[in-house]
């Protein structure tokens, strides 16, 4: 059974040197807690460094300052080992030369798991995302929505204690997005994993998250932490409730000025 893990982002800053010109400050002293076995959404204008933050939590990027602390929920202490983590990517990042089954099994193969156990777990993981029987297809033979389900299966097969979702539905059409949001929401709930969802969709963050962290334009800072206590399961109907609207307006109000600022920065860069 997976340990339940809480995460504390502790004063994370990232400044990187650009090829030309002054160094770029991407993140400035980001501190916030991530509750175990729930979904924390990080929302902000484009270029605010929210995907960068996700990669820092995953350990794929090293921050200039600050650290990510993993806390074992049972003991309340700093975890003795890094939790198992897996990421679902906006652009899917499936290996095009591998079949669906081989893509899902990639992480298990790296770990040296034997073939039969790998096949068994791959089959189970694909069943979770309703892709039974697609093992031998290549990614290019699938639609965008199916590809992302492979991406989700590839992450879930690792039995992650922390699931990182990097704008997972950003490249999908509106209908596919709705269906997958519901599916993912269920999967996260049943698996008891701690999930971090990076998104630029206010609606998506409210539908999926327990807590929403709103970030500012670059350099990314925390503008607000908002608890979402709408009942689950949430669906399209949730979006028609008054509680949803008031949350939406609150977040939009926080984001609007930041988006304008971000646009101004982008214009300045052109």
């Amino acid at each position: 059974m997976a340990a339940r893990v809480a995460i504390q982002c502790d004063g994370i800053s990232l400044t990187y040197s650009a090829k030309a010109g002054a160094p770029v400050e991407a993140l400035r002293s980001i501190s916030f807690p991530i509750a175990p076995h729930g979904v924390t959404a990080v929302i902000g204008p484009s270029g605010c460094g929210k995907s960068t933050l996700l990669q820092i939590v995953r350990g794929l990027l090293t921050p200039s300052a600050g650290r990510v602390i993993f806390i074992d929920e049972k003991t309340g202490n700093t975890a003795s080992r890094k939790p198992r983590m897996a990421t679902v990517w906006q652009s899917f990042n499936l290996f095009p030369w591998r079949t669906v089954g081989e893509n899902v099994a990639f992480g298990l193969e790296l770990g040296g798991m034997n073939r039969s156990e790998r096949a068994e777990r791959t089959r189970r993981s694909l069943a979770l995302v309703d892709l039974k029987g697609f093992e031998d297809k290549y990614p290019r033979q699938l639609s965008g929505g199916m590809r992302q389900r492979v991406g989700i299966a590839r992450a879930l097969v690792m039995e992650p204690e922390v699931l990182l979702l990097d704008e997972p539905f950003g490249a999908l059409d509106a209908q596919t997005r709705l269906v997958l949001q519901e599916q993912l929401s269920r999967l996260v709930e049943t698996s008891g994993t701690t999930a971090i969802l990076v998104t630029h969709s206010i609606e998506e963050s409210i539908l999926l998250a327990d807590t929403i962290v709103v970030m500012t334009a670059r350099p990314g800072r925390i503008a607000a932490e908002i608890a979402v206590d709408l009942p689950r399961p949430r669906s399209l109907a949730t979006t028609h409730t008054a509680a949803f609207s008031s949350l939406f307006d609150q977040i939009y109000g926080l984001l609007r000025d930041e988006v304008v600022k971000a646009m101004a920065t982008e214009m300045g860069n052109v």
Partner: protein
Amino acid sequence: MLKEESSKPTVAEGPQKAFQLVQQIGEPRVLGWLAVALVLVMWEVVVATAHLNPIYLPRPTHILAALFTMFSSGGLLTDLLATLGRIFGGFAISLIFGTLLGTWMATSERVNAIADNFIAALYPLPKVTLIPLLIIWLGTGGPFMLAISALGAVFPIVINTVLGIRQCDPGLVLAARDLGASNRQIIKMVLLPSAVPSIFAGVRLGLGVSIILVVAAEMVVGKLGLGARLYLAGQILETEQVFAVLIVLAVLGVIVTKAQDLIDTRLTRWRA
């Protein structure tokens, strides 16, 4: 009235059949082979009727006969095998060495900087110009033949390996790292597979150069091999044998090209 109607189809049948035949001949594939046959027949007829000296232009049937005797009693098979061994032996060396060096160059800026100038200097150099130097160093035996063959193929393979690995989507490397891949695993399981189409394009170019160089080297120094056979036949004005060796080389080229096509489609099935 009725009679006329019933007779209509029979009237149309003749021209229709002829039309179908013309259509079949018009098929690009059929047309291509028909053209070959036509040239051969015309060649045979013209040479026979004009009584051309066979030293200049022998008849295709005589060339075929020469080819047959060379294979059955003239040891042409030995020459063919020697040439093939040299081509593919050298090619195998350059495939292994070229992919390794290319991978190393693509993943290390320092190695790239070191190797880059040497490659820039050697790559455009016509490799036949290296034959004299290689003979001085290695003599004219097996090592020389393998070296010249490997030299021909190695540059396109190195360059295409570097290119292929550099074109790998960085998102795939991130995804692999996320799933726990070490640097070595990323090279083996992400960078190299993603570069396979590009490496294979290098293999195509390289193998072509290897064939040219081995045959050219055999013409210069060889006692054995298709190039040597070709050169000797020319020296003693055995034009039929010259043509026969050319045919073997041409067929070899066709087989190699078709085999590459086959391997290419198998290896890159995952692409569009």
